[in-house]
Structure formats: structure tokens, C-alpha cells
């Protein structure tokens, strides 16, 4: 019952969340994509700066950390080549998020037998080692929760930013954050009593 009430409260938009969704001005992505297609390569650099943390976070929720950085670059180069196929320029975020998810799946198809997800745990730095342990716990959560939670806790994005970048609704992001955090807390309490 409490869970249901909490979910209903979260689905009701707060003034800040409402302000973030009711933005009438043209999206920066539209301007940047148009500029890139007109030959301005620097505009793609700005798109890269805007979306690289999101791509990094989505990959981190799925593949080993050591592979993430190279794959981020690959994904943006691929996006640059295929930018002319993007129909809705405002949907650059959801488009590149989908490319990223597909690339992560391809990664596992290609190297299913050779790569272990837990290899990051072998780090010698104690701080990084603990971070990797928590990351593993987050990776054990349902897909919808782990992606949102990593974007919030690892990449430092706020809920409205996650919604705007990934194309998810603010309400979905809010629910994913709440439920994901609840499950992560339960796991952390079980593991180390954080």
C-alpha cells in the first residue's frame, strides 16, 4: 500500500519536472544536427560533449569497464557516419541511446566466451575496488533500474536530464530511480551494511 502511494506521488509532476518537460524553445540537438549535416564538424563535437556521459553510463550498465571507453568512441564515429539517416533531429538522444544498447548486445555476441563481466573486480586500488563491487550489484538489478541508477549515481545526471537525454518520460525515470535505489539499498545492507 505504501509502495503504491509512493509511486502515485512520484508520478505527479513536480513544478521543476513540469518546467523541464514544457520547454517550447527549439532543442539544441536540432540546431546541432542540422549544422553537422551542413558540414560543421565542430557541432558534432558539441553533441559528443552533451551525450558522451549518457553513452558511457548505458555501456557501463552492460559491458566490462575496460571496454567502455573505446566503445564510446566507436559509437560516436558510427553515429557521425549515419547521422543522415536520423529523421527526427530532436530525437538524437534516444537514437544514440538505441545505437549504444545495440552495440552492447553485439559486444556480447562477439565475445561471449572470452570476456567476463567481473574482471573489473581485480583492481588494486581499494576505492575503485569498492566502486566496482557496488557497480556489480547495480548490474544485478533489472535493466530499467540499472541504467537509470548508473546515469544518476555514476554519471551524476539528474532525473530530468536522464529523461531529456534518453527520451524516457520523467515519471518513468522517477519510478526507476526510486525502485532501483530501494533494491540497491537492500542489496548493500545484505552485503556490507552501508
Amino acid at each position, binding site marked *: 500500500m505504501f509502495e503504491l502511494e509512493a509511486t502515485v506521488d*512520484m508520478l505527479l509532476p*513536480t513544478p*521543476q*519536472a513540469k518546467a523541464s518537460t514544457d520547454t517550447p524553445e527549439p532543442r539544441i540537438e536540432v540546431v546541432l544536427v542540422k549544422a*553537422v*549535416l*551542413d*558540414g560543421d*564538424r565542430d557541432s*558534432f*563535437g558539441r553533441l*559528443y*560533449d552533451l551525450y*558522451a*556521459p549518457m553513452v*558511457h*553510463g548505458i555501456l*557501463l550498465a552492460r559491458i566490462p*569497464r575496460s571496454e567502455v*571507453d573505446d566503445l*564510446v*568512441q566507436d559509437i*560516436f*564515429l558510427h553515429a*557521425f*557516419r*549515419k*547521422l*543522415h539517416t536520423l529523421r527526427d533531429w530532436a530525437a538524437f538522444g534516444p537514437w544514440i541511446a538505441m545505437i549504444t544498447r545495440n552495440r552492447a548486445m553485439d559486444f556480447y555476441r562477439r565475445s561471449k566466451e572470452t570476456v567476463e563481466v567481473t574482471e573489473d573486480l581485480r583492481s588494486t586500488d581499494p*576505492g*575503485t575496488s*569498492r*566502486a*566496482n563491487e*557496488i*557497480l556489480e550489484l547495480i548490474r544485478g538489478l533489472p535493466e530499467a533500474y540499472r541504467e537509470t541508477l*548508473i546515469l*544518476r*549515481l*555514476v*554519471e*551524476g545526471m*539528474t*532525473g*530530468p536530464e536522464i529523461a531529456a537525454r534518453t527520451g524516457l518520460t520523467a515519471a518513468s525515470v*522517477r519510478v526507476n*530511480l*526510486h525502485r532501483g*535505489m*530501494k533494491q*540497491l*539499498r537492500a542489496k548493500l545492507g545484505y552485503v556490507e551494511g*552501508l
Partner: protein
Amino acid sequence: MNEEYLWDKSGEPDPEIQQLEQILGTLGYEPKPLDLSAEVQPRSRNRYLPLMAIAATLLIALIAGALWLRVRSKTSPQLDSAKIQSPKPQLVVPKVEDKKTNDILATASGKPSRDERPKVKQVRHPRTPETAKMTVSEHEQALEAKEQLMIALRLTSEKLNLAHRKAQGASPTQIRNQHKVG
């Protein structure tokens, strides 16, 4: 847990979430420059391409239609002159040669023999509007013709049976289905 802090980092900071942010922040994205020098410039989308494709299709269809009409107008006089006339349907009465059978059939039906009967001059289709307004004499003639046709058909059937029996090696007078007799 402070929901507002988790949502947009507003309100009173949640110590648990802050601790997680601190630990996990070390795994976050570290900006690296993207090298696009080796990449080819992406093609710019031509927004008029679908319209141009539709226009081209319509143009081709128009040209094809005009050519077809031109070719058709050249060949049509020849087609008009080459009208095919279908032959009128004719009634074919089979020629009866077996006079003996003919006489037997004639006596059986109580009708005069073939030689004595009047010849049918004209047979019209019974469902045509012309036949609907037939006079009494015409109607009699039609009935007679019908009778004649029926006899001719019976005759043909008899002859076919005879030929069949001959082909099978049995005599024409042989009684069929002998096992049933006696």
C-alpha cells in the same frame, strides 16, 4: 531516503546517496576528444528527394500513356476492318440410313415413316422473342420438328448400341444379362 535529492539533487542531501555518488563517481565518464579527422562528412539529407521521386514516376506514367494512345490510334483502323463474323448456328439432323430400324421406330411411336413426314424447313430457338409470338401453325411445326429430332436421336442411339455390340463380338440378337434369365 530523500526522494527529491535522488530525483534532481534538490532539497536536503541524502547522506547515503551522497556516499554512493562519491564512491561511484570515480567510475564516471572522463572527457576525451573525439577524432573525426579520418571520417567522411555525413551526407546531408535531401528533403525534396521523395517529391522528386513522385514527380518522376508521374512523368514516366504520362509519357507511357501518351505513347500507348498514339500506337493505339495508328492500329485501330485495321482492327475495325478486321471484324470477325461468327457463323450462324445450324441444326444438323443426322442422316438415317438404316431403313429397317427407322420403320420399327416409326411404327412404335405411331408416327408416319421418315419418307412420309414433312421436312422441317426452319427451327428457331424457343426462347427468342420471335417464338413467343408464334402462331398456332408455327407452334405445330415446332412440335413436329422436336419430335423429328427426338426420333433422330433415338435412332442414333440405337445405331451406336448396335455398333458397340458388334465391336464386342456379340450377335445383335443376343440377349444381354443372360444370367438373370432362368
